[in-house]
């Protein structure tokens, strides 16, 4: 819908060093000073200490990031600043000073006057954060009429101005549209426009891009950074994405289990973190700029339950370097100028952790190059019919369009692309959860695309799947043991008496304990559930496992654990993976070969290292450019080509090369014919006439 929209920043690279911003910030008074803030929720199960002793400041024009895994209290702290937490259940203590005024003492009416005028907030889900039954115009002008007493005409004019500012084309028309008529990216731009309406001094963005695709994420973040600098608005950005922090934040606050564990400038925190959690986090995240050389370092275990957190340092149970003293709460103290950490052993860390960095190298098993492909996909398409009106023709969503791929035994094929590109559908076709419209899918030489239901059973024992959402991929009414045993029972893999033993074995294999067989899924954490999903897949001794966004929903530290597990299993059991993901870094880390999909088609296909080192297709390049790397030093020197526009509707794909409307290299020829895959290197086909 919005292909024509061009990012307001175009191809501008980031040139101003972050340090200057920080220095400039020092000279003025902080916009926001948070001191010893704590938030508690009283629930029927007990008191949840969601935020404890949080202190930080934000200076004008500065972008401060708050990083942490889910449940670490980062969003709650932001809502507490805005006093938007439900009044009955939340207990807020400490001090929040905005422009010198103590916000926590204000009465509701005074606070209301500050909200939206001096402090604005942007939320994660642009889909649900806009009122579906009100026009965009009204939603933008609302703060203007409320806080600035503008009349309707003036407010409308300002709204047009704001929409132009955030890069929404045709703003006049947009004002009379409803949120559902806009794309996700557009909605988030509208949210930003609402936030900026009254020229606030502080903008709090709570995971503003988590729900968006990587290319759109880059557009939105660039916009925010640019606006922050141009308008001098201080920005607090809450995120779990370390790459974003590295690329955009001036200063970083790392939260763990309701407390701040490390705080400092981006360079210093990313350069040499002091707190073992921060260090672990940084090494646990797969990096786009590193190949599949090393196993990911992981933080074992899971974050504590905030109903009954461990005493002392909250990280103690997971910390390799914990000492007796850690039973006291470590204060957040400067470890060096502008760099604070809450760890008693912060100064020894540099020394201690080196030993830990003994990541095994060369885990790589090269694909046995000559072997015949175990999975051979030829010209597969899947069109979903969409019923139009009563009198209009049935149209088709071309979810997968003429895809050809092959996977060799023991290999991992990574399949990347943005949401809606058809990668999951392709996975479902391979599993025969959907029937392909055309083409053939050969598994061990048999075309399974046309097998009957009964004949598929034999294949199904050899091909299994792991899904993204660890919450809904396990039947909530069955115990873990039943879930894992079920395929074995049904397919008579093992004699009945041996099944229980095998379940215990499998649980251990995936890093769980046999006693967990009696638990129900909801009694496990997300990471544990994903392990159960893996155990279930392994129960039939499969050859191939389709991993459909298998780690996307997990927190960074857990994600690292699961990725390592998958790699281990591959070595042990000689598994072949089809790894579907949108996170380029994860794909790079785990895959031997990578295929990039766009709008139902493969646009580029190459061995992993080759693809990331030498991307040919402009879309691949754009994807890589848009994905931030969790290293501010690298980020600040990386040229950033932000791809414009958004993904077109697969109902009505562009003619010729489907990427041409967004492509910087596009010419008239691109609109004419679908570009064929051309071999531009050994095993490196690309579908672009300009590459």
């Amino acid at each position, binding site marked *: 819908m919005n292909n024509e929209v061009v990012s307001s920043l175009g191809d501008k690279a980031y040139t101003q060093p972050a340090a200057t911003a920080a220095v400039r910030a020092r000279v003025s008074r902080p916009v926001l000073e948070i001191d010893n803030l704590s938030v508690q929720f009283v629930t029927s199960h007990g008191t949840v200490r969601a935020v404890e002793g949080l202190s930080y400041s934000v200076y004008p024009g500065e972008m401060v990031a708050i990083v942490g895994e889910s449940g670490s209290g980062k969003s709650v702290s932001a809502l507490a600043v805005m006093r938007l937490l439900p009044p009955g259940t939340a207990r807020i203590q400490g001090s929040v000073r905005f422009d010198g005024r103590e916000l926590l003492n204000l009465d509701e009416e005074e606070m209301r006057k500050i909200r939206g005028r001096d402090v604005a907030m942007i939320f994660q889900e642009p889909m649900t954060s*806009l009122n579906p039954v009100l026009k965009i115009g009204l939603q933008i002008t609302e703060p203007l009429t409320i806080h600035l007493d503008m009349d309707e005409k003036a407010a409308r004019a300002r709204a047009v101005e704001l929409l132009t500012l955030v890069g929404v084309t045709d703003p006049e028309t947009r004002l009379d549209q*409803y949120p559902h008529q806009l794309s996700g990216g557009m909605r988030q731009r509208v949210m930003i426009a609402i936030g900026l309406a009254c020229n606030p001094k502080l903008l709090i963005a709570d995971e503003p891009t988590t729900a968006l695709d990587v290319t759109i994420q880059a557009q939105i973040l660039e916009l925010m950074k640019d606006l922050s600098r141009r308008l001098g608005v201080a920005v607090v950005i809450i995120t779990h994405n370390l790459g974003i922090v590295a690329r955009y934040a001036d200063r970083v606050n790392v939260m763990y289990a309701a407390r701040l564990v490390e705080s400092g400038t981006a360079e210093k925190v990313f350069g040499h973190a002091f707190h073992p959690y921060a260090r672990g986090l940084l090494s646990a995240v797969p990096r786009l700029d590193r190949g599949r050389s090393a196993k990911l370092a992981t933080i074992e275990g899971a974050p504590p339950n905030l109903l009954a957190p461990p005493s002392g340092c909250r990280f103690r149970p997971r910390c390799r370097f914990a000492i007796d003293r850690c039973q006291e709460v470590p204060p957040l103290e400067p470890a060096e100028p502008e760099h604070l950490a809450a760890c008693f052993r912060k100064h020894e860390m540099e020394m201690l952790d080196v030993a830990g960095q003994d990541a095994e190298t060369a885990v790589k098993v090269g694909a046995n190059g000559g072997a015949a492909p175990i999975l051979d996909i030829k010209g597969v398409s899947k069109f979903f019919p969409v019923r139009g009106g009563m009198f209009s023709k049935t149209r088709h969503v071309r979810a997968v369009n003429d895809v050809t791929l092959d996977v060799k035994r023991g290999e991992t094929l990574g399949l990347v692309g943005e949401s809606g590109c058809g990668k999951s559908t392709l996975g479902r076709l391979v599993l025969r959860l959907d029937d392909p419209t055309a083409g053939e899918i050969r598994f061990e030489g048999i075309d399974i695309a046309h097998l009957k239901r009964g004949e598929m059973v034999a294949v199904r024992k050899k091909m299994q799947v792991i899904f993204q959402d660890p919450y809904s991929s396990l039947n909530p009414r069955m115990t873990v043991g039943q879930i894992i045993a079920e395929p074995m029972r049904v397919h008579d893999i093992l004699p009945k008496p041996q099944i229980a033993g095998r379940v215990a074995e499998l649980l251990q294999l995936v890093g769980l304990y046999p006693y967990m067989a009696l638990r129900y899924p909801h009694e496990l954490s997300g990471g544990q559930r994903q392990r159960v999903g893996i155990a279930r897949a392994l129960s039939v001794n499969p050859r191939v496992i389709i991993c459909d966004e298998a780690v996307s929903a997990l927190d960074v530290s857990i994600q690292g654990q699961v990725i390592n597990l998958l790699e281990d299993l591959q070595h042990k059991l000689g598994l072949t993976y089809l790894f579907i993901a949108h996170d380029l870094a994860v794909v790079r880390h785990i895959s031997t070969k990578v295929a990039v999909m766009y709008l139902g088609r493969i646009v580029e296909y190459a061995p992993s290292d080759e693809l990331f080192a030498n991307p040919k297709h402009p879309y691949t390049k754009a994807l890589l450019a848009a994905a931030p790397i969790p290293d501010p030093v690298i980020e600040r020197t990386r040229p950033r080509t932000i791809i414009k526009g958004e993904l077109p509707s697969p109902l009505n794909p562009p003619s010729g090369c489907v990427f041409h409307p967004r492509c910087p290299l596009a010419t008239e020829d691109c609109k004419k014919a679908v570009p064929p895959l051309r071999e531009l290197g050994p095993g490196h086909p690309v579908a672009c006439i300009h590459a």
Partner: protein
Amino acid sequence: MLWYLIRRLFLVIPTLIGVAIAVFFLIRVMPGDVVVVKLRADGADVSEEMIQAERKRLGLDKPLYMQFTDYMVGLAHLDLGKSLWTGDSVNKEIAIRIPVSLQIAVMASIIAVLISIPLGTISALYRDTWIDHSVRVLAVSGLAVPSFWLGMLIILALLALFNWLPKIGYVPLWEDPIANLSVTIWPAISVGYRYAAVATRMMRSALLEVMREDYIRTARAKGVWTRLIMRRHALRNALLPVVTVIGLEFAFLIGGLVVTEQVFNINGVGKLFVDATTRGDFNLIQGLVLFIATMFIFVNLIVDLLYAWLDPRIRLS
């Protein structure tokens, strides 16, 4: 929107035809003979021969398929046939009874809407206070009290307090509004209570749900004052499910009327239906059932359209 309307209208047709067919065959397997009831009503000694003659006169001796064809042909002309009891056309029989039933139904709906929206809103706003609790108790009771019993209690109360009983017989509103309302208001309250209760509950829970929505948080973050949040942001969204419930509950309203018209001696569609069933007047029953079902289908159609109109996500797609 226009397309939506047309499409919805077209979808109604097969349902109506299905209803018509189902009604016909359902009724034909109904035991009992209208002729016997009619001729032996007061116990007269009626010979079998006489009964057969009457059956023939009413066309009940025709084979089923012929009766069915006549019925469907009639329907195509919007003709529901003739009452086997009175010999008058079913259309006419129904038309006579519509005004009073319709008026009561409309009044009950108005009562429901007028009560439920403010009450549900207040209840949600003052959640978990005594106001909320009393509204909820009132609402849950509304679901529990049988409308006919409520009607009897109203009569008892009127008799005890004012020594006055509602009159019988319907005077059109425009002829004598006071006489009209003194007849219709009581059954309207009897059946409207449940209606109001259901809508109040829906209003309350919808509003509470809406208040948890992200866009309400957005509005608060914008600094919109609470009353404006309620009016502009919450109410319109919360009304959507309430509108649906009002449509669905219309069926209950009709059901309530069937029983309550007995209590208040209202010469309405409900009473006609009960009479027709007791008499076994096939044509009238099938005509009435078809009529009521059609009404219900159309009320829901209107509600759907209203919903679509209120919700831009449907209106503009």
